[in-house]
Protein backbone atom coordinates (compact mmCIF):
# COMPACT_ATOMS: atom_id res chain seq x y z
CA UNK A 1 0.00 0.00 0.00
CA UNK A 2 1.31 3.41 -0.92
CA UNK A 3 1.35 6.03 1.84
CA UNK A 4 1.66 9.76 1.26
CA UNK A 5 3.46 11.31 4.21
CA UNK A 6 1.32 14.43 3.98
CA UNK A 7 -1.80 12.32 4.69
CA UNK A 8 -0.48 10.98 8.00
CA UNK A 9 1.73 13.78 9.35
CA UNK A 10 2.35 17.50 9.63
CA UNK A 11 5.44 19.44 10.61
CA UNK A 12 7.49 22.59 10.88
CA UNK A 13 10.98 23.55 9.80
CA UNK A 14 13.46 26.29 10.53
CA UNK A 15 17.13 27.21 10.63
CA UNK A 16 20.02 26.56 12.96
CA UNK A 17 22.90 28.33 11.24
CA UNK A 18 23.66 26.47 8.01
CA UNK A 19 21.60 23.50 9.19
CA UNK A 20 17.85 23.18 8.85
CA UNK A 21 15.67 21.31 11.30
CA UNK A 22 12.57 19.52 10.09
CA UNK A 23 10.11 18.26 12.69
CA UNK A 24 7.53 15.73 11.47
CA UNK A 25 4.52 14.89 13.65
CA UNK A 26 2.15 11.99 13.04
CA UNK A 27 -1.56 12.67 13.49
CA UNK A 28 -2.10 9.43 15.45
CA UNK A 29 -0.30 6.45 17.00
CA UNK A 30 -0.63 4.32 13.89
CA UNK A 31 0.94 7.13 11.88
CA UNK A 32 3.79 7.35 14.36
CA UNK A 33 4.51 3.63 13.99
CA UNK A 34 4.70 4.14 10.23
CA UNK A 35 6.99 7.18 10.29
CA UNK A 36 9.18 5.63 12.98
CA UNK A 37 9.72 2.59 10.78
CA UNK A 38 9.87 4.17 7.32
CA UNK A 39 11.23 7.68 7.81
CA UNK A 40 14.82 6.55 8.20
CA UNK A 41 17.88 8.77 8.16
CA UNK A 42 18.94 7.25 4.83
CA UNK A 43 15.56 7.80 3.21
CA UNK A 44 15.45 11.44 4.31
CA UNK A 45 19.01 12.03 3.12
CA UNK A 46 18.13 10.58 -0.29
CA UNK A 47 14.91 12.63 -0.45
CA UNK A 48 16.87 15.86 0.06
CA UNK A 49 19.53 15.01 -2.53
CA UNK A 50 20.68 18.29 -4.12
CA UNK A 51 19.35 20.24 -1.11
CA UNK A 52 21.09 18.76 1.93
CA UNK A 53 24.85 18.40 1.43
CA UNK A 54 25.75 17.24 4.94
CA UNK A 55 24.87 14.59 7.45
CA UNK A 56 21.26 13.99 8.44
CA UNK A 57 20.64 13.56 12.18
CA UNK A 58 17.44 11.82 13.31
CA UNK A 59 15.81 12.02 16.74
CA UNK A 60 12.66 10.35 18.08
CA UNK A 61 10.10 12.07 20.27
CA UNK A 62 7.50 9.35 20.95
CA UNK A 63 5.80 11.67 23.47
CA UNK A 64 4.83 14.00 20.62
CA UNK A 65 4.52 11.20 18.02
CA UNK A 66 7.28 13.09 16.26
CA UNK A 67 10.66 12.77 14.59
CA UNK A 68 13.16 15.59 14.37
CA UNK A 69 15.66 15.76 11.54
CA UNK A 70 18.66 18.05 11.46
CA UNK A 71 19.90 18.55 7.91
CA UNK A 72 23.48 19.81 8.04
CA UNK A 73 25.02 21.95 5.30
CA UNK A 74 21.66 22.80 3.74
CA UNK A 75 21.03 26.54 3.83
CA UNK A 76 23.81 27.91 1.63
CA UNK A 77 25.78 29.19 4.62
CA UNK A 78 22.76 30.32 6.65
CA UNK A 79 21.87 33.75 8.02
CA UNK A 80 22.74 36.73 5.84
CA UNK A 81 25.51 34.74 4.12
CA UNK A 82 22.97 32.57 2.31
CA UNK A 83 21.82 33.52 -1.17
CA UNK A 84 18.87 31.14 -1.03
CA UNK A 85 15.38 32.52 -1.40
CA UNK A 86 14.34 30.30 1.52
CA UNK A 87 17.50 30.95 3.54
CA UNK A 88 15.82 29.81 6.76
CA UNK A 89 14.49 26.51 5.44
CA UNK A 90 10.92 27.48 6.32
CA UNK A 91 9.48 25.43 3.44
CA UNK A 92 11.52 22.26 3.99
CA UNK A 93 8.91 20.57 6.22
CA UNK A 94 6.48 20.82 3.32
CA UNK A 95 9.23 19.50 1.03
CA UNK A 96 9.65 16.42 3.22
CA UNK A 97 5.88 15.84 3.32
CA UNK A 98 6.06 15.23 -0.46
CA UNK A 99 7.53 11.82 0.34
CA UNK A 100 5.58 8.67 -0.54
CA UNK A 101 6.46 5.12 0.43
CA UNK A 102 5.20 1.54 0.29
CA UNK A 103 4.07 -0.19 3.47
CA UNK A 104 2.67 -3.67 4.13
CA UNK A 105 -1.15 -3.68 4.41
Amino acid at each position, binding site marked *: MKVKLIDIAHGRSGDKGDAANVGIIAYDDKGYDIIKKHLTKERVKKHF*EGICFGEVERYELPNLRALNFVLNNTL*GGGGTVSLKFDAQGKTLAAALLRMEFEIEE
Partner: protein
Amino acid sequence: MKEKIRIASGQGFWGDLIDAPVAQVNAGQIDYLVMDYLAEVTMSILQKQKNKNPDHGYARDIPELMEKILPQCIEKDIKVITNGGGVNPVSCAKEIIKVAEKLNIKKLKIGVVLGDNIVDSIDNIIEQGCHLNNMETGEEIDLHKDKLLSANVYFGAFPIVEALKNGAQIVITGRTTDTGLTLAPMIYEFGWDKENYNLMSAGTVAGHILECGAQASGGNLMADWQGVENMAEIGFPIAEAYSNGEIIITKHESLGGKVSLETVSEQLLYEIGDPKNYITPDCVADFTSIKVQDLGNNRVKIFDIKGFPETEFYKVSCSYADGFTASGSLTYSWPQALTKAKAADKILRQRLKNLNLQFDEIRTEFIGYDATHGPLAVKLDENLINEVMMRIAVRSKDYKSVERFGRELAPLILTGPPSVTGFAGGRPKPSEVVAYWPALIPKNLVQPKVEYMELV
Protein backbone atom coordinates in the same frame (compact mmCIF):
# COMPACT_ATOMS: atom_id res chain seq x y z
CA MET B 1 2.94 33.03 47.18
CA LYS B 2 0.75 32.84 44.10
CA GLU B 3 -0.63 29.49 43.01
CA LYS B 4 -0.69 30.38 39.31
CA ILE B 5 0.42 33.18 37.00
CA ARG B 6 -0.43 34.02 33.41
CA ILE B 7 2.48 34.97 31.17
CA ALA B 8 1.62 36.39 27.76
CA SER B 9 3.81 36.43 24.67
CA GLY B 10 3.73 39.82 22.96
CA GLN B 11 6.20 39.52 20.07
CA GLY B 12 7.80 36.63 18.21
CA PHE B 13 10.52 38.73 16.61
CA TRP B 14 11.36 42.36 15.96
CA GLY B 15 8.93 43.23 13.20
CA ASP B 16 6.03 41.15 14.49
CA LEU B 17 2.45 42.50 14.76
CA ILE B 18 2.92 45.84 16.47
CA ASP B 19 -0.36 45.78 18.38
CA ALA B 20 -0.20 42.17 19.58
CA PRO B 21 1.10 43.22 23.03
CA VAL B 22 -1.69 45.79 23.28
CA ALA B 23 -4.25 43.03 22.69
CA GLN B 24 -2.57 40.80 25.27
CA VAL B 25 -2.86 43.53 27.91
CA ASN B 26 -6.45 44.51 27.08
CA ALA B 27 -8.31 41.35 26.04
CA GLY B 28 -8.12 39.42 29.31
CA GLN B 29 -6.24 38.85 32.54
CA ILE B 30 -2.45 38.44 32.48
CA ASP B 31 0.32 38.94 35.06
CA TYR B 32 3.33 39.22 32.78
CA LEU B 33 3.99 40.34 29.23
CA VAL B 34 7.16 38.91 27.70
CA MET B 35 8.60 40.03 24.38
CA ASP B 36 11.44 38.53 22.41
CA TYR B 37 12.93 40.93 19.89
CA LEU B 38 16.33 39.44 19.22
CA ALA B 39 17.26 37.13 16.40
CA GLU B 40 20.94 36.36 15.84
CA VAL B 41 21.30 38.96 13.11
CA THR B 42 19.46 41.60 15.13
CA MET B 43 22.32 42.25 17.54
CA SER B 44 24.71 43.20 14.73
CA ILE B 45 22.11 45.53 13.21
CA LEU B 46 21.60 47.17 16.59
CA GLN B 47 25.34 47.45 17.16
CA LYS B 48 25.69 49.24 13.81
CA GLN B 49 22.90 51.64 14.81
CA LYS B 50 24.63 52.34 18.11
CA ASN B 51 27.94 52.98 16.35
CA LYS B 52 26.20 55.71 14.34
CA ASN B 53 24.26 57.13 17.28
CA PRO B 54 25.25 56.24 20.85
CA ASP B 55 21.62 56.66 22.01
CA HIS B 56 20.36 53.96 19.62
CA GLY B 57 20.94 50.22 19.57
CA TYR B 58 17.66 48.91 21.05
CA ALA B 59 14.27 48.01 19.57
CA ARG B 60 12.87 51.48 19.08
CA ASP B 61 9.31 50.11 18.86
CA ILE B 62 9.39 49.69 22.62
CA PRO B 63 8.88 53.31 23.81
CA GLU B 64 6.04 53.68 21.30
CA LEU B 65 4.47 50.47 22.59
CA MET B 66 4.89 51.56 26.21
CA GLU B 67 2.96 54.70 25.47
CA LYS B 68 0.01 52.48 24.54
CA ILE B 69 0.19 49.95 27.39
CA LEU B 70 2.00 51.43 30.36
CA PRO B 71 -1.05 52.92 32.15
CA GLN B 72 -2.93 49.60 31.98
CA CYS B 73 0.18 47.67 33.00
CA ILE B 74 0.51 49.80 36.12
CA GLU B 75 -3.20 49.74 36.92
CA LYS B 76 -3.43 45.96 36.58
CA ASP B 77 0.09 45.30 37.89
CA ILE B 78 1.25 43.59 34.71
CA LYS B 79 5.02 43.28 34.62
CA VAL B 80 6.81 43.62 31.29
CA ILE B 81 9.96 41.67 30.46
CA THR B 82 11.81 42.06 27.17
CA ASN B 83 15.23 41.54 25.63
CA GLY B 84 14.56 44.43 23.26
CA GLY B 85 17.22 46.48 25.05
CA GLY B 86 19.58 44.99 22.47
CA VAL B 87 23.04 46.53 22.77
CA ASN B 88 21.74 49.57 24.62
CA PRO B 89 19.23 48.62 27.34
CA VAL B 90 20.09 51.77 29.34
CA SER B 91 18.94 54.09 26.54
CA CYS B 92 15.82 51.98 26.09
CA ALA B 93 14.99 52.32 29.80
CA LYS B 94 15.63 56.09 29.68
CA GLU B 95 13.16 56.43 26.83
CA ILE B 96 10.55 54.47 28.78
CA ILE B 97 11.04 56.81 31.74
CA LYS B 98 10.42 59.74 29.38
CA VAL B 99 7.23 58.08 28.16
CA ALA B 100 6.11 57.54 31.76
CA GLU B 101 6.72 61.21 32.59
CA LYS B 102 4.76 62.24 29.52
CA LEU B 103 1.88 60.02 30.64
CA ASN B 104 2.07 61.62 34.08
CA ILE B 105 2.94 58.35 35.76
CA LYS B 106 4.34 59.08 39.21
CA LYS B 107 5.98 55.87 40.21
CA LEU B 108 7.88 53.35 38.09
CA LYS B 109 10.87 51.10 38.57
CA ILE B 110 12.75 49.63 35.63
CA GLY B 111 15.36 46.92 35.99
CA VAL B 112 18.11 46.92 33.39
CA VAL B 113 20.19 43.78 32.86
CA LEU B 114 23.72 44.54 31.71
CA GLY B 115 26.97 42.69 31.19
CA ASP B 116 26.11 40.57 28.16
CA ASN B 117 27.83 42.86 25.68
CA ILE B 118 31.49 41.78 25.49
CA VAL B 119 32.46 43.30 22.15
CA ASP B 120 34.86 45.73 23.84
CA SER B 121 36.48 43.16 26.09
CA ILE B 122 37.29 40.40 23.59
CA ASP B 123 41.07 40.88 23.99
CA ASN B 124 40.78 40.62 27.72
CA ILE B 125 38.71 37.44 27.46
CA ILE B 126 41.20 35.86 25.05
CA GLU B 127 44.03 36.79 27.44
CA GLN B 128 42.22 34.88 30.16
CA GLY B 129 42.49 31.76 28.03
CA CYS B 130 39.08 31.65 26.36
CA HIS B 131 39.68 31.69 22.61
CA LEU B 132 36.00 31.83 21.64
CA ASN B 133 36.50 29.09 19.07
CA ASN B 134 33.60 28.66 16.67
CA MET B 135 31.30 25.98 18.13
CA GLU B 136 30.63 24.54 14.69
CA THR B 137 33.98 24.80 12.88
CA GLY B 138 36.50 24.99 15.74
CA GLU B 139 38.23 28.03 14.17
CA GLU B 140 39.76 30.67 16.44
CA ILE B 141 38.14 34.07 16.51
CA ASP B 142 41.49 35.87 16.00
CA LEU B 143 40.87 35.41 12.27
CA HIS B 144 37.92 37.79 12.31
CA LYS B 145 38.57 39.87 15.41
CA ASP B 146 39.16 43.09 13.46
CA LYS B 147 35.85 42.78 11.65
CA LEU B 148 33.72 42.00 14.72
CA LEU B 149 30.38 43.82 14.71
CA SER B 150 28.94 42.42 17.91
CA ALA B 151 29.60 39.89 20.65
CA ASN B 152 26.97 39.05 23.24
CA VAL B 153 26.62 36.47 25.96
CA TYR B 154 23.26 34.74 26.34
CA PHE B 155 22.18 35.23 29.93
CA GLY B 156 19.35 33.19 31.41
CA ALA B 157 16.47 33.88 33.77
CA PHE B 158 18.30 34.78 36.98
CA PRO B 159 19.30 38.40 36.34
CA ILE B 160 15.62 39.05 35.55
CA VAL B 161 14.57 37.25 38.74
CA GLU B 162 16.87 39.59 40.68
CA ALA B 163 15.25 42.63 39.06
CA LEU B 164 11.77 41.33 39.90
CA LYS B 165 12.78 40.66 43.51
CA ASN B 166 13.89 44.26 43.76
CA GLY B 167 10.48 45.48 42.66
CA ALA B 168 10.96 46.22 38.97
CA GLN B 169 7.73 46.69 37.01
CA ILE B 170 9.61 46.53 33.74
CA VAL B 171 12.76 44.55 33.00
CA ILE B 172 14.84 45.47 29.97
CA THR B 173 17.70 43.18 29.02
CA GLY B 174 20.27 42.84 26.31
CA ARG B 175 21.01 39.36 25.01
CA THR B 176 18.91 37.10 27.21
CA THR B 177 17.65 33.74 26.03
CA ASP B 178 14.09 33.83 24.75
CA THR B 179 13.25 31.08 27.21
CA GLY B 180 14.70 32.97 30.19
CA LEU B 181 12.14 35.75 29.72
CA THR B 182 9.30 33.31 30.49
CA LEU B 183 11.08 31.17 33.08
CA ALA B 184 12.08 34.17 35.23
CA PRO B 185 8.60 35.13 36.51
CA MET B 186 7.91 31.50 37.50
CA ILE B 187 11.12 31.32 39.55
CA TYR B 188 10.29 34.65 41.17
CA GLU B 189 6.60 34.06 41.91
CA PHE B 190 6.82 30.41 42.99
CA GLY B 191 10.20 30.63 44.71
CA TRP B 192 11.52 27.76 42.62
CA ASP B 193 14.88 26.36 43.63
CA LYS B 194 17.61 26.98 41.06
CA GLU B 195 18.68 23.35 41.42
CA ASN B 196 15.27 21.89 40.76
CA TYR B 197 16.06 21.19 37.13
CA ASN B 198 12.68 19.68 36.35
CA LEU B 199 11.02 22.97 37.27
CA MET B 200 13.70 25.00 35.45
CA SER B 201 12.99 22.85 32.40
CA ALA B 202 9.21 23.24 32.70
CA GLY B 203 9.57 27.02 32.57
CA THR B 204 12.11 26.73 29.77
CA VAL B 205 9.77 24.59 27.65
CA ALA B 206 6.98 27.12 28.22
CA GLY B 207 9.41 29.81 27.08
CA HIS B 208 10.21 27.87 23.93
CA ILE B 209 6.50 27.65 23.15
CA LEU B 210 5.98 31.38 23.71
CA GLU B 211 9.13 32.70 22.05
CA CYS B 212 7.80 32.75 18.49
CA GLY B 213 4.53 34.46 19.30
CA ALA B 214 1.49 33.26 17.38
CA GLN B 215 3.44 30.38 15.87
CA ALA B 216 2.10 28.48 18.91
CA SER B 217 -1.48 29.69 18.56
CA GLY B 218 -2.43 28.94 14.96
CA GLY B 219 0.06 30.90 12.88
CA ASN B 220 2.21 29.04 10.34
CA LEU B 221 0.33 25.86 11.19
CA MET B 222 0.59 22.94 8.74
CA ALA B 223 -2.09 20.79 10.37
CA ASP B 224 -5.47 22.06 9.15
CA TRP B 225 -4.43 25.69 8.79
CA GLN B 226 -7.77 26.53 7.26
CA GLY B 227 -9.47 25.45 10.47
CA VAL B 228 -7.84 28.32 12.40
CA GLU B 229 -10.53 30.89 13.11
CA ASN B 230 -10.17 34.64 12.83
CA MET B 231 -6.50 34.71 11.89
CA ALA B 232 -6.88 38.44 11.26
CA GLU B 233 -7.14 39.01 15.01
CA ILE B 234 -4.93 36.13 16.06
CA GLY B 235 -4.36 35.88 19.80
CA PHE B 236 -0.77 35.35 20.87
CA PRO B 237 -0.12 32.46 23.28
CA ILE B 238 -0.34 32.65 27.06
CA ALA B 239 1.39 30.30 29.50
CA GLU B 240 -0.69 29.72 32.61
CA ALA B 241 1.93 28.43 34.98
CA TYR B 242 1.32 26.58 38.26
CA SER B 243 3.74 26.33 41.15
CA ASN B 244 4.08 22.54 40.70
CA GLY B 245 5.53 23.01 37.21
CA GLU B 246 2.38 22.21 35.24
CA ILE B 247 1.73 24.72 32.51
CA ILE B 248 -1.34 25.32 30.40
CA ILE B 249 -0.81 26.97 27.03
CA THR B 250 -3.82 29.04 26.06
CA LYS B 251 -4.90 32.40 24.60
CA HIS B 252 -7.44 35.10 25.29
CA GLU B 253 -10.92 33.78 24.45
CA SER B 254 -12.04 36.87 22.57
CA LEU B 255 -9.11 36.80 20.15
CA GLY B 256 -8.67 34.60 17.08
CA GLY B 257 -6.30 31.73 16.48
CA LYS B 258 -6.22 28.31 18.05
CA VAL B 259 -4.31 26.42 20.71
CA SER B 260 -4.33 22.65 20.18
CA LEU B 261 -2.10 19.61 20.35
CA GLU B 262 -1.05 20.38 16.78
CA THR B 263 -0.20 24.06 17.29
CA VAL B 264 1.83 23.32 20.44
CA SER B 265 3.59 20.27 18.99
CA GLU B 266 4.68 22.11 15.85
CA GLN B 267 6.17 24.91 17.94
CA LEU B 268 7.88 22.45 20.31
CA LEU B 269 9.78 21.05 17.33
CA TYR B 270 10.70 24.44 15.90
CA GLU B 271 14.44 25.04 15.58
CA ILE B 272 15.51 22.30 17.94
CA GLY B 273 18.44 19.92 17.59
CA ASP B 274 18.86 16.91 19.88
CA PRO B 275 15.58 16.96 21.84
CA LYS B 276 17.15 15.33 24.90
CA ASN B 277 19.67 18.16 25.18
CA TYR B 278 17.96 21.50 24.88
CA ILE B 279 20.71 23.61 26.41
CA THR B 280 20.05 26.95 28.10
CA PRO B 281 22.03 28.90 30.73
CA ASP B 282 19.49 27.71 33.35
CA CYS B 283 19.19 23.98 32.66
CA VAL B 284 19.30 21.26 30.02
CA ALA B 285 15.71 20.33 29.18
CA ASP B 286 14.65 16.94 27.85
CA PHE B 287 11.97 17.52 25.21
CA THR B 288 11.31 13.78 24.96
CA SER B 289 9.92 13.89 28.51
CA ILE B 290 7.23 16.52 27.82
CA LYS B 291 3.70 15.21 28.26
CA VAL B 292 1.08 17.08 26.27
CA GLN B 293 -2.67 16.90 26.87
CA ASP B 294 -5.37 18.77 24.97
CA LEU B 295 -7.94 19.98 27.54
CA GLY B 296 -10.20 21.49 24.87
CA ASN B 297 -11.31 25.13 24.63
CA ASN B 298 -7.89 26.27 23.42
CA ARG B 299 -6.13 24.88 26.48
CA VAL B 300 -3.21 22.47 26.22
CA LYS B 301 -1.47 21.19 29.34
CA ILE B 302 2.25 20.40 29.34
CA PHE B 303 3.60 18.51 32.34
CA ASP B 304 6.03 15.91 33.75
CA ILE B 305 8.95 17.71 32.18
CA LYS B 306 12.42 16.45 33.08
CA GLY B 307 15.68 18.33 33.01
CA PHE B 308 19.31 18.28 34.04
CA PRO B 309 21.88 20.69 35.49
CA GLU B 310 23.04 23.59 33.37
CA THR B 311 26.48 23.49 31.73
CA GLU B 312 29.49 25.51 32.90
CA PHE B 313 29.35 27.75 29.85
CA TYR B 314 27.35 30.60 28.45
CA LYS B 315 26.79 30.69 24.72
CA VAL B 316 28.26 33.72 22.99
CA SER B 317 26.91 35.04 19.74
CA CYS B 318 29.43 37.07 17.72
CA SER B 319 29.00 38.56 14.31
CA TYR B 320 31.47 39.98 11.84
CA ALA B 321 31.36 41.76 8.51
CA ASP B 322 32.09 39.34 5.69
CA GLY B 323 31.59 40.94 2.28
CA PHE B 324 28.49 41.96 0.37
CA THR B 325 25.42 40.53 -1.32
CA ALA B 326 22.72 41.77 -3.64
CA SER B 327 19.73 40.13 -5.24
CA GLY B 328 17.18 41.09 -7.85
CA SER B 329 14.47 39.57 -9.98
CA LEU B 330 12.70 39.74 -13.34
CA THR B 331 9.44 38.04 -14.31
CA TYR B 332 8.84 36.21 -17.61
CA SER B 333 5.36 35.32 -18.84
CA TRP B 334 3.90 32.50 -20.96
CA PRO B 335 4.79 31.28 -23.56
CA GLN B 336 8.02 29.48 -22.64
CA ALA B 337 8.30 31.39 -19.37
CA LEU B 338 10.85 29.03 -17.85
CA THR B 339 12.94 28.70 -20.99
CA LYS B 340 13.11 32.49 -21.24
CA ALA B 341 14.02 32.92 -17.57
CA LYS B 342 16.80 30.34 -17.92
CA ALA B 343 18.10 32.02 -21.07
CA ALA B 344 18.13 35.41 -19.32
CA ASP B 345 20.13 33.91 -16.45
CA LYS B 346 22.66 32.49 -18.90
CA ILE B 347 23.04 35.83 -20.73
CA LEU B 348 23.48 37.73 -17.46
CA ARG B 349 26.11 35.29 -16.19
CA GLN B 350 28.03 35.61 -19.47
CA ARG B 351 28.02 39.41 -19.10
CA LEU B 352 29.22 39.21 -15.50
CA LYS B 353 32.00 36.89 -16.67
CA ASN B 354 32.99 39.20 -19.54
CA LEU B 355 33.28 42.05 -17.03
CA ASN B 356 35.75 40.01 -14.96
CA LEU B 357 33.74 40.56 -11.81
CA GLN B 358 34.59 38.46 -8.77
CA PHE B 359 31.96 36.53 -6.90
CA ASP B 360 32.15 33.86 -4.20
CA GLU B 361 28.75 32.60 -5.28
CA ILE B 362 26.05 33.33 -7.86
CA ARG B 363 22.70 31.67 -7.26
CA THR B 364 19.66 31.68 -9.53
CA GLU B 365 16.25 30.41 -8.52
CA PHE B 366 13.02 30.27 -10.51
CA ILE B 367 10.19 31.44 -8.32
CA GLY B 368 6.89 29.84 -9.24
CA TYR B 369 8.77 26.77 -10.36
CA ASP B 370 11.42 25.37 -8.01
CA ALA B 371 12.72 28.10 -5.70
CA THR B 372 11.49 26.52 -2.48
CA HIS B 373 11.67 22.78 -3.14
CA GLY B 374 14.55 22.63 -5.62
CA PRO B 375 15.03 19.19 -7.15
CA LEU B 376 11.87 17.96 -5.37
CA ALA B 377 9.63 20.32 -7.35
CA VAL B 378 7.26 18.59 -9.75
CA LYS B 379 8.47 19.06 -13.32
CA LEU B 380 5.77 20.96 -15.18
CA ASP B 381 4.84 21.04 -18.83
CA GLU B 382 6.01 24.51 -19.82
CA ASN B 383 2.65 25.27 -21.44
CA LEU B 384 1.09 25.08 -17.97
CA ILE B 385 3.40 27.69 -16.45
CA ASN B 386 1.85 31.18 -16.62
CA GLU B 387 4.89 33.04 -15.42
CA VAL B 388 8.23 32.55 -13.71
CA MET B 389 10.23 34.98 -11.65
CA MET B 390 13.96 34.70 -12.15
CA ARG B 391 15.70 35.64 -8.92
CA ILE B 392 19.45 35.99 -8.98
CA ALA B 393 21.68 36.71 -6.01
CA VAL B 394 25.44 37.25 -5.71
CA ARG B 395 27.95 37.39 -2.87
CA SER B 396 31.47 38.79 -2.97
CA LYS B 397 34.18 40.29 -0.78
CA ASP B 398 34.51 42.90 -3.52
CA TYR B 399 31.96 45.71 -3.13
CA LYS B 400 32.46 46.95 -6.71
CA SER B 401 31.57 43.59 -8.23
CA VAL B 402 28.32 43.46 -6.25
CA GLU B 403 27.49 47.03 -7.12
CA ARG B 404 28.12 46.40 -10.84
CA PHE B 405 25.95 43.28 -10.75
CA GLY B 406 23.12 45.56 -9.65
CA ARG B 407 23.49 47.59 -12.82
CA GLU B 408 23.42 44.56 -15.14
CA LEU B 409 19.97 43.25 -14.24
CA ALA B 410 17.57 45.88 -15.64
CA PRO B 411 19.27 46.04 -19.08
CA LEU B 412 18.04 42.47 -19.67
CA ILE B 413 14.58 43.92 -20.25
CA LEU B 414 15.65 45.51 -23.56
CA THR B 415 18.58 43.22 -24.33
CA GLY B 416 17.26 39.73 -23.55
CA PRO B 417 14.30 37.37 -23.98
CA PRO B 418 10.79 38.87 -24.47
CA SER B 419 7.60 39.33 -22.37
CA VAL B 420 9.51 40.38 -19.28
CA THR B 421 8.41 42.70 -16.50
CA GLY B 422 8.63 43.26 -12.78
CA PHE B 423 11.64 45.46 -12.46
CA ALA B 424 10.47 47.96 -9.91
CA GLY B 425 12.26 49.51 -7.01
CA GLY B 426 15.49 50.36 -8.80
CA ARG B 427 18.82 48.59 -8.97
CA PRO B 428 19.62 45.89 -6.41
CA LYS B 429 21.85 47.55 -3.81
CA PRO B 430 24.76 45.82 -2.12
CA SER B 431 24.12 44.96 1.51
CA GLU B 432 26.70 43.88 4.05
CA VAL B 433 26.99 40.20 4.88
CA VAL B 434 26.92 39.62 8.61
CA ALA B 435 28.50 36.28 9.35
CA TYR B 436 27.56 34.67 12.61
CA TRP B 437 30.04 33.15 15.05
CA PRO B 438 28.70 31.00 17.88
CA ALA B 439 31.10 30.25 20.74
CA LEU B 440 31.18 29.27 24.40
CA ILE B 441 32.56 31.17 27.37
CA PRO B 442 33.10 29.88 30.93
CA LYS B 443 30.44 31.38 33.18
CA ASN B 444 33.00 32.81 35.60
CA LEU B 445 34.42 35.15 32.95
CA VAL B 446 31.27 37.28 32.67
CA GLN B 447 28.97 38.69 35.32
CA PRO B 448 25.45 39.89 34.69
CA LYS B 449 24.68 43.15 36.44
CA VAL B 450 21.28 44.65 37.22
CA GLU B 451 20.80 48.40 37.47
CA TYR B 452 17.64 50.34 38.19
CA MET B 453 15.98 53.46 36.91
CA GLU B 454 13.20 54.92 38.92
CA LEU B 455 10.46 57.51 38.96
CA VAL B 456 9.50 58.24 42.57
